């Protein structure tokens, strides 16, 4: 699997992604600068990592979504390429229109860094094949603008087409508006594109790949990608 990580001014979790891909057994990803207009030859997976691209100024992800490299990513995704957007990467993918909806300020307005319980919504994707539908997992979040919103029609489509990859849940795996940590509609923590090959999610699977460093619940995501794309 050839992985390319996008680097915008302000990206700060690219090293975490590199570590996760290599710990999962993959080759060391290459890093693509935001002004580049093409992805490396033979790229199998593009990762849009977390951070504060362009300082999150204007809107999180807004300026990165309009940078030269995103045109290449858009074409790559349209041709069936796999794209993973984590945290700020998810925000960038929605701003770019590659994923539906938008991410606004958390319900409580504050930045939240903590481990959260999630329920896997679907196992039908190159990202979630290593989990079972309905499985309870625990991943950290670290964001201030992770409150997922979309119009009713979009939400219905996401549900009908089984495209909600992860939802926030309580300790017993129960999903409800009250226990959703940031106010996301339908407790959405991650969504898939129509062709199921683009995933955006707010939690950080890359910070849950080693025992003693945040657990290992994020590892199946990277292993599943490796199996599918190698």
């Amino acid at each position, binding site marked *: 699997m050839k992985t390319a990580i996008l680097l915008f001014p302000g990206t700060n979790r690219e090293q975490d992604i590199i570590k996760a891909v290599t710990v999962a057994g993959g080759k060391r990803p290459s890093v693509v600068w935001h002004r580049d207009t093409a992805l490396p030859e033979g790229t199998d997976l593009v990762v849009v990592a977390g951070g504060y691209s362009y300082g999150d100024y*204007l*809107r999180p992800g*807004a*300026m990165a979504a*309009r940078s030269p490299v995103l045109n290449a990513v858009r074409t790559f995704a349209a041709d069936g390429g796999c794209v993973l957007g984590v945290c700020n990467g998810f925000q960038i993918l*929605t*701003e770019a229109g590659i994923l*539906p*909806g*938008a991410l*606004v*300020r*958390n*319900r*409580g*307005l504050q930045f939240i860094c903590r481990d959260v319980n999630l329920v896997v919504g679907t196992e039908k994707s190159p990202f979630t094949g290593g989990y079972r539908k309905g499985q309870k997992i625990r991943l950290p979040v670290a964001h201030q603008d992770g*409150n997922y*919103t*979309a*119009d009713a029609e979009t939400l219905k489509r996401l549900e009908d087409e089984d495209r909600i990859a992860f939802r926030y849940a309580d300790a017993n795996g129960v999903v409800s508006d009250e226990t959703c940590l940031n*106010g996301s509609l339908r407790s959405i923590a991650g969504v898939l594109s129509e062709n199921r090959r683009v995933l955006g999610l707010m939690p950080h699977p890359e910070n849950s790949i080693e025992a003693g460093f945040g657990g290992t619940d994020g590892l199946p995501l990277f292993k599943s990608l490796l199996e599918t794309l190698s």
Partner: protein
Amino acid sequence: MKAKVTISFKPGVLDPQGRAISHALAGLGFEGVGDVRQGKVIELDLAETDAAKAREQVEAMCQALLANPVIETYAIELAK
């Protein structure tokens, strides 16, 4: 010519900051405040002197970057 773009959430999109302001105002004893929406204002200094053309330009900027049409609406004001 100067342009002022006011960006706010579309009706129906929950505005967490607006809601917090509304709660805070109620806590301070200001009664009768209904919905509160927080937006942002962007001021642009344009070389263009023709109002119609300027509006057209700013409209394009809003569509391309300044507003996110999924959640936001905008209003443009022009001044000399």
